[in-house]
Each structure stands twice: as structure tokens, then as C-alpha cells.
């Protein structure tokens, strides 16, 4: 296993900045936001026969294992259920990473491309 974890935070649409602000304070470098739709039965409404599902943002953040817990608790505080973001966050173990620009990652074959 690598020394990284993938944190996934699911928040209401438009509140991904709350997640990123909290995560950056905890030491995360950046993230990627995807658009999604929630299917929780409480949130699904019906207007004039048209089912309306709430829009969500999924934020993917790759962090070193050492700061995983503090990042998760920072997200819970800054964008969790007690905020307008109404977010949940969890982490997945990452087996391997490429492209982060660390010294290990930048080792390339000097003859590559010849």
C-alpha cells in the first residue's frame, strides 16, 4: 500500500469550496470536484409530477496517510452535517499513486522518448 489515502467528500452542490477550505487548512494540496445527484429518499421531491433529485458535489482529495484523520475531521467541521454543505466524508486506501510530483514519482527513464 502507498502512503496516500483518497478522501471522498459528498456535499450539496455549490459547497465544494467549504470542503476545500477545510482540507487545505488541514494540509491537503488540492482536489477535484465532480457533479452528481443524490438519491436519498428524504431529499427527493416531486413537483408537478416531475421528480427532482438534489444536486451534489463530490470532492476527491488525495492526502498523505499522516494527515488523513485531521483532514476528515476538518471537513466534518467545515462542511459536515452541521453546515449548509450537509456533507459526508470518508477515505479509501490507495494502493499506488502516479503524478503527484514527489521525488519518487519524478524518477523517469533518462532514455525514455529516444
Amino acid at each position, binding site marked *: 500500500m*502507498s502512503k*496516500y489515502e*483518497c478522501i471522498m467528500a459528498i456535499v450539496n452542490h455549490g459547497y*465544494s*469550496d467549504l470542503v*476545500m477550505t477545510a482540507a487545505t487548512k488541514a494540509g491537503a494540496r*488540492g*482536489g*477535484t*470536484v*465532480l*457533479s452528481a445527484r443524490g438519491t436519498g429518499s428524504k431529499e427527493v421531491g416531486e413537483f408537478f409530477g416531475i421528480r427532482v433529485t438534489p444536486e451534489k458535489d463530490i*470532492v*476527491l482529495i*488525495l492526502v498523505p496517510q499522516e494527515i488523513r484523520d485531521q483532514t476528515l475531521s476538518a471537513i466534518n467541521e467545515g462542511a459536515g452535517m452541521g453546515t449548509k454543505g450537509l456533507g459526508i466524508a470518508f477515505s*479509501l*486506501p*490507495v*494502493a*499506488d*499513486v*502516479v*503524478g*503527484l510530483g514527489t521525488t519518487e*514519482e*519524478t524518477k*523517469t527513464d533518462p532514455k*525514455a*522518448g529516444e
Partner: protein
Amino acid sequence: MSEEQEKSFVPYDRTHRLRPLLFVTTIVPDGQAESILQLNYDCESALCCVCHGHGTAPAEILSILSVSPKKDVVFSVLRLEFWEKYKDALRQRFSVSAMAKGIAYSVPLDSVAGISIYKMLSNTRLFEKPISPTEKKGKKE
């Protein structure tokens, strides 16, 4: 399941060699998903899904670097044996220029729902054969 069926049931992993699978997420700048899909195809991936997302870097920095925040996110399932090949190809690609930078990571898959799904995801439905008795003997020795 009846008793007879229970007795005759042999788990798939007893008779076949399982190939570990990885769930791979590749994040590249907007418009570059096609080449990542081709790379996945070369690595015998049977399932790829492209989503559109955006990065979270501040707008001021993006305007200075004249980089678009739009991203293509490719989710795919790869056999573990192809990960090194995939990684090396990505590493070379990412080192070409700042416009080709990206990130990829893999999460191991623990379980799948059914043998046919496993065969589809691992792309082994055509050539996977049961382990031969001689191979089994060799394993024990």
C-alpha cells in the same frame, strides 16, 4: 439452495486462478480523456467511464498560469498485472509538458457481485480456463 446443490457447489476461486483487480482513477486536463481511454484499452481494461470535473486551484493562480480548471476524470478497472505498464505510460505522458500533467491512483477491489461480472471486469472470459490437475499438484509440491 437445496442440500444437493450445496454439496455440488465449488467456489470459483478453488478451481480458477483469480486475478486481482484495481479500481483506477485518472485525472487529466480537459480533452485528454481519449488518450487515457486508449491507454486503458492497451492495458486490457474492460470498463472505463469518463466524468467531467474541475480542479480546486484558486482562480488567480489559474489565470496566471493560463490553465483551465476543467478536468476529465477517467474511472477504470484494471488487472493488477497491468498496473506497472499503465503507470509507466502515464509517468512518461505526464512528464511531457505542464499541459499534460495529471494524477492517477489505484484502489484494490475486494469483491465483485458474481462470477460473470468478475470475468467481464477482468476481461478474462475468453481465455480463462480451470486450473489443470497437474498445475494443482505442482502448487502442492
